[in-house]
């Protein structure tokens, strides 16, 4: 009587070869498949942060991989674990993605020891993105604090590559001290772009620092844009975006026009493991990008 129940083999389901649709579509067979990827370049940014250029090895997979600014990937070092990392490169850049990674835990420490050529795993991209299309035609404030420049760099690329689509563009960046400034080799490039204002502030200057001193909110004081008609993307630690968003709100910007990116522990990226839940919202599926009004309504988000 072996016919009572015929085994069902999930691997016999047809292969779905449509575009990834930014990974919002279900791909049963790719559920736990990682793209084998190679670290093709490592750029030292500060003592604790490195920028990794990562290329998916399989050409067909590489071709189909696409993401939107604000999305993240799960980076896996087999045998060590998996971490969520936001993509720091331009969505228009084909061939490889850039990941700015701070040495903080087990997996990131291993990554910091990795040499170029090492093979890691990538899953994704996951999550929501900054609504760049919606922001077109408006002025835009791109505000980062500390490591927040890593997720902000993708929208910065998007804005600078499509500069004519936006009105005024301000990039405001603050860190604790000058040694923590990320991507310092790019500031000159951003400054030279016509109609881009880049302002950088540090809290604790060293003796060579000539720029402004204080918190990033101080930079906002000098910004003169029609706030009701401006969008903001704010990336940084929760205490920082809370202050920035409250200040922007006082200056007249609607809270649902400010976008922030939340950071949580994640083990899947697919709305299953619940580790990233804020109240009841999955940061991996409904976020990491939220407008500030939504964040304010999430219990225990900030």
């Amino acid at each position: 009587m072996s016919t009572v129940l015929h085994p069902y083999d999930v691997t016999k389901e047809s292969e779905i070869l449509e575009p990834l649709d930014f990974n919002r579509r279900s791909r049963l067979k790719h559920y736990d498949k990682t793209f084998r990827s190679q670290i093709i370049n490592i750029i030292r940014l500060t003592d604790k942060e490195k920028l990794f250029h990562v290329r998916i090895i399989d050409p067909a997979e590489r071709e189909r991989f696409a993401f939107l600014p604000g999305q993240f990937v799960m980076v896996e070092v087999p045998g060590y674990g998996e971490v969520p990392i936001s993509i720091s490169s331009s969505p228009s850049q084909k061939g490889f993605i850039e990941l700015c990674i701070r040495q903080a835990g087990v997996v990131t420490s291993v990554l910091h020891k990795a040499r170029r050529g090492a093979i890691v795993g990538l899953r994704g991209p996951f999550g929501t993105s900054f609504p760049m299309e919606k922001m077109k035609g408006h002025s835009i404030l791109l505000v980062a604090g500390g490591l927040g420049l890593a997720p902000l760099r993708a929208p910065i690329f998007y804005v600078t590559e499509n500069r004519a689509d936006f009105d005024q563009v301000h990039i405001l960046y603050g860190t604790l001290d000058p040694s923590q400034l990320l991507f310092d080799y790019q500031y000159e490039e951003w400054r030279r772009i016509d109609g881009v204002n880049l302002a950088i502030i540090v809290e604790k200057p060293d003796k060579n620092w000539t720029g402004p001193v204080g918190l990033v909110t101080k930079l906002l004081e000098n910004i003169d844009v029609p706030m009701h008609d401006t969008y903001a993307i704010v990336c940084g630690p929760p205490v920082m975006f809370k202050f920035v968003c409250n200040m922007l709100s006082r200056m007249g910007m609607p809270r649902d026009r400010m976008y922030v990116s939340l950071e949580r522990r994640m083990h899947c990226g697919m709305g299953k493991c619940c580790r990233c839940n804020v109240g009841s919202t999955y940061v991996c599926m409904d976020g990491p990008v939220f407008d500030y009004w939504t964040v304010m309504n999430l219990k225990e988000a900030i």
Partner: protein
Amino acid sequence: MLFKIIEKDQFRRLVGILLDSIEVIGPKQIDIDKDGKPVHQYLPVRSFAELDLDYETTEYSAKTYFLPYKENLSTYRFGDAEWKQEIRYRLQPRAIVGLHACDINALLKLDKVLARDFFPSPYYISRRKNTFIVGLDHMPGEHCFCKSLGTNTVTRGFDLFLTDLGERYFVAVDSDRGYTLLQQVRTSDVTEQDTRDYLEARKRIAAAFKTEVNIQNLPNLLDIEFESEVWKKWGGKCLSCGSCAMVCPTCYCYGVTERVSMDNTEGAKIRQLYSCNLLDFAAVAGGLNFRPRRETRLKYRYYHQHRGFVETYEEPKCVGCGRCSRVCLAGINPPDVIRDLQAEVQS
């Protein structure tokens, strides 16, 4: 839905047919507790006699056969600066006999999370589709409050569902494979008397519930009482052991860890069920913990059960099986917590 009548001896034959071909899981008495009551678990059985279909509840839910506590997600083979990933899903068919309505409803809730919309899990789907389910009606136990949550009846998610009518079972058939299996034994069509008996039995069950919880407006209440002292009271008792999530038929939170073999040639990515009450559930690299206190973690558990899940799937995650309160060492009982919250508003 198709309905049939099956004599109990024929049902025994039917289970025998299952036993001859595939693994059969069912309620099995494993011990007696301190009050002299039998203790049951869903375990593999080798004969019909090992099944105790008259059981009240099991310590663990049947979740473990669909979402095992530990599951190998993939294996890695390491070469020289290279690795290969291998993924295997469980294919062996098996049957679970005697699952109660609340537990089948729990599977339906898990289906919503793990087998629909975005990112359906092939690990889960593979196990779910390869499991033949025979459900069974039962008289509610003292702590069952599934009626309050609308999970004391079930209309899908099983292959066969039995209601005891004395010498015979009233069978609901919800799949072709269930219908096919029934044809291998002697069954009869439902008579008017059978229908009357069935409705009578259902009525008896519905009237026997001793524990009731009012979940009306609970999602809003949870929001209003977010800062309530009630959380401190119950959170203060909580030992953060995570037992409640382990026995819960719908808790699906997990963590993923990776292991490497001693000789460095193999690695494994392992999923292990986790609990939101455990200390490091929401801790991130660098030392920040988003829920460092016991009461915030306990509160989050209720939040997910009765608010978050409702928001997404329009029904609470809890099925009212009462297993978490049975297992809780600190005596935290969901109906009491919910009643406390409701009293808070009225006071």
